[in-house]
């Protein structure tokens, strides 16, 4: 099987793994974002808790979860291997290098952006995923027989997002994610050879839109709880009438 190992240890082979895992992780972002939008539902967190219980217990989701672990693992591993090769390719730097005149900052700093995202990911997983999976969360309680034994992840979210430095970390991480996607989305297609003068401008535009929408929507979550809700996730009285009228208007 040496042709397989040769393929995936070549510079292009490694880039192809980077691109496939990167685009796969983009699909994860969509699922994660759409699910988390339930945080904005004004039901005391019921919908979000039911959703998170489903995600934590459904056997299909739990299986796909391993794919996600592998996706992150290979993306990070290949990034390290490629970075090592690339740094070895130019051991002596230029005295004067004006790369800002021929390329974008985001494109040249994917490693730094990715590392920032990784730091965020570790904090994020520890705070929510780890507690949801291995205990440490309160139960919902109440009278509903079906849901009273579910973990109350919603309250963990609410309390975390009332800590100022935690909110700051989340928003900063979304900037890193946004810039990472700004280059990464289109770059993934280019690496797979999917470049065509008709479609590449469209792919790039979709990538830029994807980067902005996904990172802004994720950043909106901690900001929303920090700025507009009390310790129980209820809207503070100042914003409550506004949201109420908006909800009525949407109905």
């Amino acid at each position, binding site marked *: 099987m*040496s*042709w397989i190992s*040769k*393929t995936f240890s*070549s*510079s*292009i*082979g*490694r*880039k*192809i793994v980077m691109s496939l895992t990167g685009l796969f992780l983009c699909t994860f972002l969509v699922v994660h974002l759409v699910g988390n939008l339930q945080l904005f539902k004004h039901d005391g967190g019921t919908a979000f808790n039911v959703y998170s219980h489903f995600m934590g217990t459904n056997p299909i989701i739990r299986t796909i979860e391993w794919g996600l672990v592998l996706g992150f693992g290979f993306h990070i591993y290949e990034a390290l291997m*490629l970075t090592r*090769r*690339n740094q*070895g*390719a*130019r*051991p*002596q*730097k*230029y*005295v*004067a*290098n*004006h*790369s800002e*005149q*021929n*390329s*974008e900052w985001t*494109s*040249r700093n*994917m490693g730094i952006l990715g590392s920032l995202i990784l730091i965020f990911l570790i904090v994020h997983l520890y705070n929510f995923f780890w507690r949801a999976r291995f205990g440490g969360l309160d139960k919902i309680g109440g009278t509903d027989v079906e849901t009273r034994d579910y973990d109350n992840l919603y309250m963990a979210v609410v309390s975390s997002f009332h800590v100022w430095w935690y909110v700051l970390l989340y928003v900063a991480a979304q900037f890193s994610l946004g810039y990472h996607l700004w*280059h990464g989305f*289109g*770059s993934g297609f*280019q*690496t*797979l*050879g*999917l*470049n065509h*003068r008709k479609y*590449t401008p469209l792919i790039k535009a979709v990538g830029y839109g994807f980067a902005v929408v996904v990172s802004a929507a994720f950043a909106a979550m901690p900001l929303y709880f920090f700025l507009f809700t009390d310790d129980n996730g209820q809207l503070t009285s100042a914003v409550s009438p506004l949201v109420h009228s908006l909800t009525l208007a949407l109905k």
Partner: protein
Amino acid sequence: MAGSNPNAKPMNLTLNVWRQPSPKAQGKIVEYQVKDISPEMSFLEMLDVLNEDLLHKGEDPVAFDHDCREGICGSCDLFINGRSHGPEKGTTTCQLHMRKFSDGDTITIEPWRANSFPINKDLSVDRSAFDRIIQAGGYVSVNTGGAPDGNEIPIPKDIADRAFEAATCIGCGACVAACKNASAMLFVSAKVSQLALLPQGDVERKTRVENMVAQMDIEGFGACSNIGSCAAECPVGISLENIAILNREFLTAKATSNNLA
């Protein structure tokens, strides 16, 4: 003395030049002053003036690569003020003219920096890594005859044009020099796409891309991060589309060739 343009005023410049006596020696930036440089000189002619001065003073002239001085041979290779071939887009160093600079400017001149392009002396680098990549597969083995024989094979105009665009690569190495990763993929992709597009190159297209990419990796060039600085600095405008074609060719070859090694 300002050449034929009466409005062109001669310039005095400060040059920060990389001096390195031999491949293994420690190099450093040395400052030189050049006077009465005509704006109509090419950058290399300005360096000729510097070398004349140095010779008159009994000092070692600055070594730099050059040949045709017409922008077609790909020999000249200077990293000028932090850019491959200097500040002007779509230009080789020999076609960069001093009118792009102003009197009193300080210009930093360095060699291409890549592990795969070892420095011979001063600003001159050894780009034989490119030759070895071409030797690995950048050719067609069949005898295609003379021009009349070549024209016997009908090739659609748009295909011929695209192959020609890729074929304009002069192998100067500006792409490697500009790339953050010192990647040679724009250079390799230009040859791979040129030959993959043409019927003459079709016969060996799988072994070609496999062997050329393998040699590129052996030479120690970095991997492509799709940053685009290579295409932005390419004096002949080789586009990133070629790298996508290279990736496609590589994937297809690896998946379908009979090569198990």
